């Protein structure tokens, strides 16, 4: 006897992501899901972003790593509330992990929540967390072929940050190649070129982000 099921296999995560979303809407919190390879500059980028927006908005950070407290401690050292999730082997964050981490934050005093996902260009693309904005960092030393190799991530993200732009002279990175490929995957993609070391391009990113947050909350 045939029985219709028609049930989404990832429905559990999607349902939890929606619950997170409802909580964020209720508390008027703008949420960023930040993704990139290990070493692309996620934590440095978060620190630069916070420096640019903290006079206007109260920020908190959820850090996701397989192990260690390294990143959360870096954030806390700047006086920003931070919760570290250790996934113990999982290569991406999921909505239930975020739901649990939120219990450790005073959400009535948060305007912007940055979630630093586990360093990975593959898996985070599949798992919604309840975010407003997906931001993907690609750093110059990683090479210009990453959009071809990891198309889903580049197709799904809202913003692409080309980081370590100060290293362009030392590399063969072809910006036009990235532009062409990402346009074909994601014509609405917003791209910012910057360096967390030299501060080049940071202001443009921060100004745009402030505008986006103001619209949302």
């Amino acid at each position, binding site marked *: *006897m*045939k*029985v219709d*099921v*028609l049930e989404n*296999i990832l429905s559990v995560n999607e349902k939890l992501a929606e619950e997170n979303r409802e909580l964020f809407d209720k508390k008027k919190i703008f949420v960023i899901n930040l993704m990139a390879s290990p070493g692309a500059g996620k934590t440095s980028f978060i620190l630069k972003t916070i420096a640019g927006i903290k006079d206007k908005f109260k920020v908190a950070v959820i850090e996701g790593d397989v192990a260690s407290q390294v990143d959360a401690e870096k954030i806390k050292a700047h006086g920003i509330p931070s919760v570290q999730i250790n996934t113990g082997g999982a290569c991406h964050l999921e909505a239930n992990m975020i739901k649990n981490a939120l219990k450790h934050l005073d959400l009535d005093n948060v305007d912007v929540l940055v979630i630093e996902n586990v360093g990975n260009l593959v898996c985070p693309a*599949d798992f919604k967390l309840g975010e407003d904005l997906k931001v993907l960092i690609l750093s110059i030393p990683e090479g210009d072929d990453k959009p071809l190799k990891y*198309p889903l991530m580049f*197709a799904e993200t809202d913003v692409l940050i080309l980081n370590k732009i100060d290293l362009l002279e030392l590399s063969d990175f072809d910006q036009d190649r990235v532009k062409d490929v990402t346009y*074909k995957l994601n014509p609405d993609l917003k791209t910012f070129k910057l360096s967390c070391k030299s501060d080049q391009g940071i202001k443009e990113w921060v100004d745009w982000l402030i505008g986006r947050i103001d619209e949302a909350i």
Partner: protein
Amino acid sequence: MHELGITENIISIVLKHGEKEDAKKITKITLKIGELTQVVGDCIQFYFDQLSKDTIAENAELVIEYVPIKVRCADCGSEKEASNYDFTCPSCGAICTEFTAGREFLVDDIEVE
């Protein structure tokens, strides 16, 4: 990727529906998997064989229907199957931004005794 966790979810879903029907055995499970999900069917079969042991889903035939990525052009309305992540509209050359198929990821139906 994550086929182990995914297979655990599949088994949980089919057992739930099987139990609702008072099934003694689940003989067939049909999955619809869109190409955009990047899920590998062979891995699901492998984990399914392990995880279904001692359940009513043990030895069920696992049928995976892959759904190709289909896109629609917002400019001229043309649709096409987008192989190799090529979303260029065949009629007007714009980039198709609407996915009309390829994101499916569900247990479609089961057959029970």
